[in-house]
């Protein structure tokens, strides 16, 4: 029993100091903060790779990097941004916020939580180290299609596979922990249909993760066996099929892209009501829409493979199933807009990012619908139109939502308000830079410029130059974000418990910054 009493005793004077505090911590706020810092670090690494790509593409012709290295840059940029920047950022927010939002004392399995985090820096060290190995790092695209990633891959692919396995372990354990937390740690009275939308979106995201990350583990295991142990999963000479790789990969990969956007939906569903000073319109329809999107994500994977040679019936099925996703997504966009309708709105930085999310994510959604049309996809497939599409859903979608969340909850995390004018500057520079980068890609894509190629035809030169200028503007703007976070941690106007006039939820009932341990005794939710 003594340890129970110890826990209680420690709760008032906070954590131990020094490096080992972070290594050994079991506190959800510490672990959430580490996830967020890790994500920011990876965001800069992945961003550096993106700027190398855009430098090479500034002009036609080969000038800065070798094509072989260019391929490594496109691959590593994708892998790092997906698995290192976006996913850990959302997991970090989940760690920090879910326990306080549901009135629980911590995550359900705190030591497991620490393990989930620390696997990431190690696995990404292994992944990044492959670039210094003989033959170079991954050069087969973030989707690592066989046989590019098997027969024609550099030897480092084996380390890539093991790094991905470690990341997968981290994701599975993290999501099991989140499910257990949400089902088991809610304060009395916090029924499922009273849960904040961010919690709901993460519950559904966790299900997606538990269901598909093992499939990723399966497909990379097949790769490992094909490369090193003579199996023929992806080799037609032995009766296998390279397209099998794509089926298994995208069975993971499509839910994966929803894993990167559902938590963003949850965040925006907090911020828009707060700054429109109205409750969220259609809460229950939001829950059902998110669940429907998650369900549909399992039966649309082959829309990534329309041109690979699948039967006509398959093309039709996957085309219609994909278009069906527009319905629940439309419900969500409708609800966000209706929440704002006749609201008493103000436009602080989180709201600006959330509004840009609604508009720009919708653009990405519409280009997704264009790509869903199987016959039209034969024109768009593997062009910059696809690049424009998924960057519109990931940059002003996922990443803007992460920024919005950081500005919205930073006062709760640090106890200080960020400098509003700097936040707004960050927003406008990001907004302009991001659109400058990715909007022209729609045009060059429709005109036929292929993706993942270091050189291009003269006719694409102007738009590429614009995109590169935009990319540098967007990239360097993010240093401003780093500066804002540091400034806010170090000082600034003291934040009130309820930092925003229209903010709702248990987290705002806590002082700012939130104490190290919160809700050791659960609050009563009415």
């Amino acid at each position: 029993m003594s340890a129970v009493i110890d826990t209680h005793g420690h709760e008032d004077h906070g954590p131990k100091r020094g490096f080992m505090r972070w290594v050994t911590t079991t506190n959800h706020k510490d672990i959430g903060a580490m996830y967020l810092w890790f994500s920011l670090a990876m965001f800069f690494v992945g961003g550096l790779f993106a700027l190398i790509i855009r430098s090479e593409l500034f002009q036609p012709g080969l000038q800065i990097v070798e094509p072989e290295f260019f391929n490594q840059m496109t691959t590593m940029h994708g892998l790092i941004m997906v698995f290192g920047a976006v996913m850990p950022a959302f997991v970090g927010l989940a760690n920090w916020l879910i326990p306080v939002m549901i009135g629980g004392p911590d995550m359900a399995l705190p030591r497991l939580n620490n393990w989930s985090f620390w696997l990431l820096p190690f696995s990404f060290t292994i992944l990044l180290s492959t670039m210094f190995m003989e033959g170079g790092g991954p050069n087969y695209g973030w989707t690592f299609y066989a046989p590019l990633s098997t027969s024609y891959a550099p030897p480092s692919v084996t380390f890539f596979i093991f790094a991905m396995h470690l990341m997968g372990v981290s994701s599975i354990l993290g999501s099991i922990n989140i499910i257990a937390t949400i089902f088991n740690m809610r304060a009395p009275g916090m029924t499922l249909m009273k849960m904040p939308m961010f919690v709901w979106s993460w519950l559904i995201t966790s299900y997606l993760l538990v269901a598909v990350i093992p499939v990723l583990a399966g497909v990379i295991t097949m790769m490992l066996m094909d490369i090193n142990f003579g199996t023929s999963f992806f080799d037609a000479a032995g009766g296998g099929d390279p397209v099998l790789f794509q089926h298994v990969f995208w069975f993971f990969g499509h839910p994966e892209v929803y894993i990167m956007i559902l938590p963003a939906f949850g965040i925006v569903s907090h911020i828009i009501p707060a700054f429109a000073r109205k409750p969220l319109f259609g809460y229950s329809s939001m829950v059902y829409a998110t669940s429907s999107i998650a369900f549909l994500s399992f039966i649309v994977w082959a829309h990534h493979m329309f041109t690979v040679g699948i039967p006509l019936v398959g093309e039709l099925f996957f085309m219609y199933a994909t278009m069906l996703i527009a319905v629940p997504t439309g419900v969500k966009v409708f609800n966000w807009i209706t929440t704002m309708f006749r609201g008493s709105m103000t436009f602080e930085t989180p709201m600006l990012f959330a509004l840009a999310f609604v508009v720009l994510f919708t653009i990405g959604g519409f280009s997704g619908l264009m790509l869903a049309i199987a016959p039209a996809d034969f024109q768009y497939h593997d062009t910059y139109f696809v690049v424009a599409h998924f960057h519109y859903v990931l940059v002003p979608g996922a990443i803007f939502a992460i920024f919005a969340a950081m500005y919205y909850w930073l006062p709760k995390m640090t106890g200080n308000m960020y400098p509003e004018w700097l936040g707004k500057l960050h927003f406008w520079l990001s907004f302009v830079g991001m659109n400058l980068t990715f909007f022209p890609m729609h045009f060059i894509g429709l005109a036929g410029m292929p993706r993942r190629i270091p050189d291009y035809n003269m006719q694409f030169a102007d738009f590429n130059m614009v995109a590169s200028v935009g990319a540098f503007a967007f990239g360097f703007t993010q240093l401003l974000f780093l500066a804002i976070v540091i400034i806010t941690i170090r000082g600034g106007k003291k934040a009130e418990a309820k930092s925003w006039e229209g903010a709702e939820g248990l987290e705002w009932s806590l002082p700012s910054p939130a104490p190290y341990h919160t809700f050791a005794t659960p609050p009563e939710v009415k």
Partner: protein
Amino acid sequence: MAGAYYVPEQSKLPIAATLASSIMMIGAGIWVVDNGQGNVYTSGPTIFAAGLVAVLAVMYVWFSTVVKEHQAGMNNAQLQRSYVWGMGWFIFSEVMFFAAFFGALFYVRNFSIPWLGGEGEKGVTNMLWQGFEATWPLMQTPSQALEASTGIAAANTVRGPGEIIPWSGLPLINTILLLSSSVTVHFAHSALKAGNDKGMSRWLAATVILGFVFVGFQAEEYVLAYTELGLTLETGVYGATFFMLTGFHGLHVCIGAIMLSIMWLRHRKGHFQPKDHFGFEAASWYWHFVDVVWVGLFLFVYIL
């Protein structure tokens, strides 16, 4: 504060687990890469073994910590539920891992092999593999068929299996063994709930023995396949799906049997009460899961 949710203090276990698993993975990577390049003086096996030992050591310490905490009464009913949720969803993730391999088997049997044989909508692929006929089990691979019919050798010819393992021999015995073990573990559970310590001990021991006998027969089957039948990992997609599915299943049987053996030891030490024995229950869930996977394997890999 009795009854409060137990949030553990700082712990070195997770970072130890991270280091151990990373070392194991790096060792495996070095080993496999060196092996592929014909480098016999590789440090891989040593590093891998060191990592594996460290992983096992961390698991031992971690689980005994949890057991001790439970026995000290730190875990309330709510924390117990966290473990229940955790184990349940962990098993679900394992199901999805097997689903990837079952999905691959389904796809090659129903789609890609018929297409390679010239059947169906994508049968045009057959022009690359003249003379290939779709059969399952795939005794003659597309590259063998091409070589036989045209005399042209493919860039990498893959040989099919010589013979396959009939379902009616060892696999049938193994099915009976594993299904019985699911029943015996259930009897053990019932005995435990009824407070019948002796019954629990015996039925659980029977389960573990059945599990290890299964693994023994599986090993015998593998030896037979490699030495006499010419069925190996490298014999085309039949060999690949056969060994990956049965191999991962066999690995899970080993893990499950080790888990149950530990539960047997824990029971001998008096860890379990008729109403408080989730450690055992979790292991038995895992055992039932392994059993269900085997039923799928027996049907789709051996019989059909």
